[in-house]
């Protein structure tokens, strides 16, 4: 269904891609091909877009997706440059000189059919017995794994694997759900196998489950048998749009500045109504409409927290009123411990956002601001254009999904650190309290640091942490000497290379374990010289001397390997002024603009002794 003309006029009046995207998502509106073209032109004329180089390897027609891909890319503030491999080629493209390799894709999309995995997956399955199924499954996984591995070895950038879902209902029809030979259950088992293989065996590869997209738009709207039989193109317009949207969302989450913090308002956002006026019994929050929509929205926010985003609260309210809801409302799901920072006061929201950014040590361009008020949304858009603003819809029924269309909230990996992030910020609040108490009784910073009982664990060339390490290079902006971004694949290459030393550390203390928060990459340039390619640290451990301790342990490790001189550079960015003097402060001599060097063997003293931190590792045999 195309968008009615009166609504389409409204859409064209919106200025930001973000607003247009939520407008479409909230009303479940699908633009026609012509409308998508107009919207794309409108978006290109209004917004700044980041280039996206997409490569598509396909065993069915993919070129017909182009107008949809260009449209959804524009919605995600990306400008698309797409390469379609020649029809019928797959492995041929997984070579260094192929058209795909020359395209230098940021993202390679593999569009495969079940048949490509195993011919038996395209035949009636009721007669295939359990043993045969097991064999077919194993062969299918092997085929796919082998194919993806070939691309991983030859093509840079992220890889997104898709398998076209069944276009028809199962062979056994409605009985399939009950059948021992259920096709649907078999397919789910195969998908689980694909996910496990890709997650555990390959870096920088994700699986996009197209069945989810079929569920979203419905099988009848997803496929068009006319185009399938006449052009080997399976998708109806709604399906083409859903597929394109998922693909460009993955690209956006890889290419755009990562979102890290979701700052939510309280009144008419976490619940319906205004606590200061309506009181505990008056706000809409609970099992009855419209309160149920707000309970569901809070569940959605908790899921986003588990995806690794930090929640913060920013509300114009009396703190006591608001706290009463957080503590005592029977249906309030988000409690004090879920918010890494809170600003409940009457100050302008842009000021509050700035102070939250300072408290969390995170840049405002990693903020998503969620508020129902026109006034607050435009105030933040105006004073802090780097913040992504999402206005909470006025209709409660639209509230639960209001963040679903935000591509920057999609993730392509999930690490242990992501799951525990908010807990780590809560630990940080406790550290701050301890520091204030010590300071009030006359204690020094050193007393405070020693009171934490910190232990740093340094590891070298640890391939099992490659996801987290890549994430650190992608996300760390402030404490980062060179801001070089690396993919999992590139890092995996450095870890296995003899020439590179990839060090990381995690930091534990009385309050908890930080997980992996620091990374250094050293490249050996000759027998006795090396270059510090990357030195970065997550902001949540700043101010604990961890950076000096880490550098010192790296130096002693390099010294033991015969390195006598270490060069390093500082590449200034808009955000890393924090480390402008880190190198000279730590004994490096300037040799040119931003270039430094230091004698490794002249570093005085026994490293570790001067720090309020016990340092462990790396084991000498860790270097591969």
């Amino acid at each position, binding site marked *: 269904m195309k968008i009615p003309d009166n609504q389409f006029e409204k859409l064209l009046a919106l200025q930001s891609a973000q607003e247009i995207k939520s407008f479409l998502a909230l009303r479940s509106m699908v633009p*026609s*091909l*012509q409308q998508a073209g107009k919207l794309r032109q409108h978006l290109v004329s209004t917004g700044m877009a980041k280039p996206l180089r997409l490569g598509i390897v396909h065993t069915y027609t993919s070129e017909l997706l182009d107008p949809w891909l260009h449209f959804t890319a524009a919605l995600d503030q990306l400008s698309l440059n797409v390469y379609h491999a020649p029809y019928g080629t797959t492995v041929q493209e997984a070579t260094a000189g192929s058209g795909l390799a020359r395209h230098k894709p940021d993202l390679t999309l593999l569009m495969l059919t079940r048949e490509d995995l195993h011919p038996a997956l395209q035949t009636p399955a009721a007669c295939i017995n359990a043993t045969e199924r097991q064999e077919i499954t194993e062969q299918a996984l092997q085929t796919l794994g082998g194919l993806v591995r070939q691309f991983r070895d030859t093509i840079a950038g992220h890889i997104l694997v898709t398998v076209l879902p069944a276009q028809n209902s199962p062979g056994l029809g409605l009985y399939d759900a009950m059948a021992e030979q259920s096709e649907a259950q078999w397919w789910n088992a195969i998908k689980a196998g694909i996910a496990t293989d890709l997650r555990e065996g390959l870096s920088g590869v994700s699986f996009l489950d197209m069945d989810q997209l079929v569920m979203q738009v419905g099988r009848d709207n997803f496929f068009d048998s006319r185009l399938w039989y006449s*052009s080997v193109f399976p998708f109806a317009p709604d399906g083409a749009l859903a597929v394109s949207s998922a693909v460009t969302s993955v690209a956006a989450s890889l290419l755009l500045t990562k979102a890290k913090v979701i700052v939510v308002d309280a009144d008419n956002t976490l619940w319906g109504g205004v606590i200061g006026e309506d009181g505990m019994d008056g706000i809409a929050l609970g099992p009855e409409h419209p309160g149920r929509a707000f309970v569901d929205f809070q569940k959605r926010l908790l899921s986003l927290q588990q995806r690794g985003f930090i929640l913060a609260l920013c509300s114009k309210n009396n703190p006591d009123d608001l706290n009463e809801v957080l503590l005592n409302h029977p249906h309030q799901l988000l409690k004090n411990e879920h918010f890494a920072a809170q600003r409940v006061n009457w100050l302008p929201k842009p000021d509050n956002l700035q102070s939250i950014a300072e408290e969390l040590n995170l840049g405002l361009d990693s903020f998503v601001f969620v508020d129902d008020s026109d006034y607050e949304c435009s105030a933040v858009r105006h004073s802090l254009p780097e913040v992504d603003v999402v206005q909470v819809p006025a209709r409660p029924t639209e509230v639960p999904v209001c963040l679903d269309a935000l591509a920057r909230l999609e993730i392509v990996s999930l690490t242990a650190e992501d799951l525990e992030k908010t807990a780590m910020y809560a630990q940080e609040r406790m550290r701050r309290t301890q520091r204030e108490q010590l300071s009030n009784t006359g204690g020094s910073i050193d007393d405070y640091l020693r009171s934490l009982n910190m232990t740093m664990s340094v590891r070298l060339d640890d391939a099992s942490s490659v996801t987290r390490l890549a994430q650190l290079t992608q996300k760390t902006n402030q404490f980062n000497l060179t801001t070089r971004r690396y993919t999992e694949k590139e890092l995996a290459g450095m870890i296995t290379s003899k020439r590179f030393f990839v060090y990381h550390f995690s930091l534990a203390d009385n309050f908890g374990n930080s997980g992996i928060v620091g990374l250094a990459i050293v490249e050996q340039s000759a027998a006795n010289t090396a270059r510090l390619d990357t030195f970065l640290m997550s902001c949540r451990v700043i101010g604990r001397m961890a950076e000096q301790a880490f550098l010192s342990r790296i130096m002693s490790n390099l010294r033991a390997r015969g390195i006598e001189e270490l060069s390093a550079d500082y590449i200034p960015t808009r955000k890393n002024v924090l480390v402008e003097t880190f190198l000279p402060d730590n004994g490096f001599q300037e040799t040119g603009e931003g270039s430094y060097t230091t004698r490794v063997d002249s570093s005085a003293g026994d490293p570790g002794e001067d720090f309020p931190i016990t340092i462990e590792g790396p084991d000498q045999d860790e270097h591969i």
Partner: protein
Amino acid sequence: MSTFKQLQEIMASALELPTDAIRESSTMEEIEEWDSLGHVHIMVALEQAFDLYMDVDDFAELDSVPAILQYLAAENAA
């Protein structure tokens, strides 16, 4: 808007051409961008704009602006 004007806009958008590149007499042969992929986009866009369900066997015959206009008139779509 006349049916031709509507068609002109739909085709120009589907083929990524300026509107005046589509003339009342244009045929698939004359316009380079009107290839088999472009043709499918025109058909899909026509269905959406005129609220039609088209038979895939008709696709091949609709290879010129006059043929499409005639088809739309016959379907009472205009």
